[in-house]
Structure formats: structure tokens, C-alpha cells
């Protein structure tokens, strides 16, 4: 097999795997006209659990025991929280938090 052939196959196989995780649950639980009540319930509550899951997922490699002990993350998250409670503006908080974080990891820690 040529090297490009291998690359194409890997991309297609990985694409199918990712697509399966996005589509198979729908094919299993969302086929009928009427969506099962339990699935509707999970649809209402899962989004409230998913943000916490995603935040922890984003911070999965944060070093807690070694320096800088997650300080850049903690400081930047505090900035996001305070600015969001103050302005209730997502873009404002994301820009401030990210700029602060980039400054901290590039120039301070």
C-alpha cells in the first residue's frame, strides 16, 4: 500500500468512528415518531451536567502537584467568572479570560 493510500484509509476509518459516536445513539433511540420519555428527560437535564464534564475535560492535563499548580487556569477562570457575572457577555469574558491566560502561560509562569 502506498503511503497516501494508508493515510486516506486512516482518515476514513477515524471519520467513520467519530461519526458513529454522533449518529448511532440517534439511530437507536430516535427512530420512531415519538421519542421515548426517558430520552426526552435526559435531553432536558444532560446539558446541565455536560458543561461541567467539558470544563474538567479541557483541564484534564492541568498540573496540580507540580508548578505552577494550575494557577494560570485558576486565575483565568476567576476572571471569566467575575467578568461574566458583571457584564453577562460571553464574548467579553472569553476574550478577557483567554488573553489573560495566554499572557500568564507565555510571560509569567
Amino acid at each position, binding site marked *: 500500500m502506498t503511503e497516501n493510500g494508508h493515510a486516506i484509509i486512516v482518515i*476514513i476509518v*477515524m471519520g467513520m468512528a*467519530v461519526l458513529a459516536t454522533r449518529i448511532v445513539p440517534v439511530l437507536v433511540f430516535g427512530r420512531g415518531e415519538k421519542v421515548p420519555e426517558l430520552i*426526552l428527560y435526559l435531553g432536558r437535564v444532560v446539558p446541565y451536567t*455536560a458543561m461541567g*464534564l467539558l470544563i474538567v475535560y*479541557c483541564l484534564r492535563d492541568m498540573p496540580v502537584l507540580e508548578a505552577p499548580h494550575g494557577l494560570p487556569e485558576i486565575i483565568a477562570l476567576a476572571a*471569566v467568572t467575575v467578568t461574566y457575572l458583571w457584564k453577562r457577555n460571553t464574548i467579553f469574558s472569553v476574550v478577557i479570560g483567554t488573553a489573560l491566560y495566554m499572557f500568564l502561560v507565555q510571560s509569567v509562569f
Partner: protein
Amino acid sequence: MRKITSKDIGAALRTSSPIIVTFIVLGIGYGILMQKHGYSPVWSLLSGIIIFSGTAQFVSVTMLSSGSVLMAGITALMISARHVFFSISMIGRYNSEGRRKGYLYYALCDETYAMLSKDDGPEGVNVSNYRLLVTLFDQSAWVIGSFLGGWIGTLLTFDSTGIDFAMTALFTTVFIQQWLDNRNHLPAVLGVAATLACRLIFGRDIFLIPAMVIIIGVLIAARGRIEPEGTDIRTENGIPAGNDDLAGGESHD
């Protein structure tokens, strides 16, 4: 299917703007990495359309030239298992999306999910068009960024270390808004606590899978406490669920 208006486009752009900027920058990073491994911008573009998962694509770079195809597939399954969780919770919302369903699920990445995992869109906007556009803008930004990265990425001297924090910040703002909107904080606390505990117990590679199993298990077991007898978590503060497309209502076809 209602015609897409400039109002729909404006609202979707406003929602997507932090994601668009970050995806272009991260996409450039991916495109540069691909270029360094000998893959032209067209490869990055193809990968962004076929795989469309940032984490899976970054991991795939070292697997493209050699290695087991089966392992690549298993790795992609493990990395994106969290999408099962997201897709399940969109079934009720997307059930009336008709022919758009296929695209909406295929391109449902973490960030798009964070923006669209509620029942309505901004006021006065057609929710079906809004969902389609947010999903499309987010994916396009990633694909365009990765193409640009391979093409002109080496000309950029800007140090983007830490830019990925934008996604953490984005999820945090959604988390805070949900916290303010809801009196029942059990699901929010459960999401953080279960995932954190699993990260500590199971290590960095597979912790999301046990975390999702625990979360779904607890949500089902605690249903009586989360939504006591006929109440709906979304209406707890006395705010009507509003544009409830689960009830049928307007057909989007």
C-alpha cells in the same frame, strides 16, 4: 423549511463568533502540524470534513503514515465517546429537523453542542435556521483555519500558546448562565464532581466514559428529585419553557 433571513445569519454569527476565532487559530495550528508531517493543506481540508473532531485529528497526524488502521479506529472511538452523550441529549430537540438532521448530528462538536443544547434560539430568529447556521459556521471556521495553516501558517510568527483556553472559558460562561437560570443545581454539581472523580481514579485517557455512565445512572436514579412529579427542570423558576419544539408545533420541513 423557512427561508434563511439576514436576522438568522446575524444571530448565528454572534453566537459563533468566539468559536469561529478560536477554531481558525486552532485550525491553523493543526494545518501547520500536518504540513510539517508532509501533508498538504488539501489533506487538512479533507480530514476536517471527514473526521471533524479537533482532538481526533491532532492525534491522527502521527497515525497517517504508518501504524495499525484498527488502532486508529479504536483511538477515535475512545476520544469521541463523549459525543454519544451529546447526541442522546439532542434527540428531542432535533427530532423535527427533517432533512437537516443528518448534517446537524454529523457536525455536532463540543462547542456547537454547548451553544445549541437548549430549546430555543435568540428572540425573533427561526430556531431551525439558527441551529443549521451555528453548526455550519463552527465547522467552516475549523476547516478554513486548517487549510490556511498548511498554506500560510509558516509565515505567522504570532505565539498562540494558550489560545485553546478560549474553549474552557466558553464552556465556563455557559455553565454560569445555566447555574443562574436554574434553582436545582444537582445536575451541574453532578457533572463536575463525577467527571473530576473519574479523572482522578481512571487517569487521563478513559475517564470520560465512566463519568458519562455515572452521570446518566445518577440522573435516572434521581429523576424524582430533579423533576418532581410532572415538573420540568426548565420551568422550575416559573418561566414557561416557551418555544417548545418537542410538542410538535411548527414543522421545519
